[in-house]
């Protein structure tokens, strides 16, 4: 417990987390501070490329093994299963419609790449290593949850738009998945030599860019929260803080079962605990247009994202520490 508090405090005084908090505060005092959309998207492209590339270099350095495949499969399975849990939990905690619950479920089965890379950064800061291929696991977990969400909506009798070939391509070759996987493969192919060529672009400035990006995310999350105060019932609040914990426990179990390193387990927890607010929302809008997008976004970006960033990550890390470094 003490450990957890120490970690949480250390986490809180990292420039990365403080930048996020600054964004929240700026939104709260209704400052007009804002990032141009192009800059926000540009930073996201940079971060995806960098984290993918570094993951690939990691795999090139330490070789790969059967665990990679197992971890990918586990990720896909978790991404498929988590929405069912989320759906059940949400329906039991609140009165939201089936359509809305299905859409929210899709968000929570998918992953938040920003939470993932914040966690990776904080791990590195603490000198905790993780498998490079966790990036590939992250990519693999983006899409399957969308399937489950559609299935949930269809199963419960509400006519979700049946995804056509175009919709499938959109989900599978989604920009962030392609960039993450592509950079991962490039990193894998070019290995340490490739990294040496571009590390002063993708390694050194990474944390700084992450600060600015999280500042922007803080602004977005804070403003979203302010605008959507009205829809927040207690049941929803409970869901937004409980679901990541449920996800994290599943991730912990999976990580331990897979025999991942401490860092790998922590990242698996983060992936399961986090909810998408980039790829999944778009897929949900296309397929479940009747669902209220403000609900999913408020829960995933407004509540679960800050929760994970500020409390979740140190908590998950402390748990792996307790369990795996006895």
């Amino acid at each position, binding site marked *: 417990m003490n450990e957890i508090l120490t970690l949480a405090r250390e986490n809180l005084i990292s420039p990365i987390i403080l930048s996020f908090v600054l964004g929240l505060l700026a939104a709260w005092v209704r400052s007009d501070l*804002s*990032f*141009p*959309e192009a800059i*926000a*998207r540009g*930073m*996201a492209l940079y971060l995806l490329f960098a984290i993918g590339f570094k993951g690939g270099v990691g795999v090139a350095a330490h070789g790969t093994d059967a665990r990679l495949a197992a971890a990918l499969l586990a990720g896909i399975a978790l991404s498929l299963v988590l929405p069912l849990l989320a759906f059940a939990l949400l329906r039991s905690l609140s009165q939201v419609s089936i359509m809305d619950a299905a859409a929210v479920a899709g968000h929570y089965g998918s992953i938040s790449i920003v939470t993932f890379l914040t966690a990776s950064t904080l791990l590195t800061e603490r000198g905790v290593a993780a498998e490079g291929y966790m990036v590939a696991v992250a990519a693999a977990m983006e899409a399957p949850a969308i399937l489950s969400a559609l299935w949930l909506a269809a199963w419960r009798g509400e006519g979700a*738009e049946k995804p056509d070939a*175009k919709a499938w391509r959109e989900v599978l070759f989604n920009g962030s998945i392609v960039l993450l996987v592509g950079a991962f493969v490039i990193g894998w192919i070019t290995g340490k030599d490739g990294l040496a060529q571009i590390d002063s672009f993708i390694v050194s400035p990474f944390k700084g860019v992450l600060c600015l990006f999280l500042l*922007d995310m803080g*602004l*977005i999350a804070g403003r979203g929260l302010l*605008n*959507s105060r009205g829809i927040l019932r207690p049941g929803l609040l409970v869901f937004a803080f409980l679901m990541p914990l449920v996800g994290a426990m599943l991730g912990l179990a999976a990580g331990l079962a897979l025999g991942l390193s401490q860092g790998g387990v922590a990242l698996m927890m983060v992936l399961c605990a986090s909810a998408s*607010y*980039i*790829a999944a*929302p*778009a897929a*949900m*809008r*296309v397929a479940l*247009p*009747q669902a*209220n*997008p*403000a609900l999913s*976004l408020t829960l995933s970006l407004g509540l679960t994202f800050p929760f994970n960033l500020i409390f979740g990550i140190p908590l998950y890390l402390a748990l792996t520490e307790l369990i795996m470094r006895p």
Partner: protein
Amino acid sequence: MEMHKAKRVEIIIEAIMERRLTDALIGSGVTGYTVLPVSGGSGRSGQWTREGQVSPASGMVSVICLVRPERLDGLLHAAFSVVERHIGVIDITDALVLRAERF
């Protein structure tokens, strides 16, 4: 200057549906359209702005389409089939165009 009657159709639709809409428009025989970026707005589903956003999920675009009056109905059916289940608005104004050969 010789001018020709036309309809100016303005379709404000979710950005994620842009491709589907323009495909439908072309399918309906429309010869051209123009897409304007939209930076924010408000409607029954709330207020929004693109500032600082990375997700393509939120945000709209405005598609402008000039057509000969006789093509309007086909266009509207095509557009409506896409917009129907999604948020968005469609308005039509009477216009004159130069260079009728283009429409």
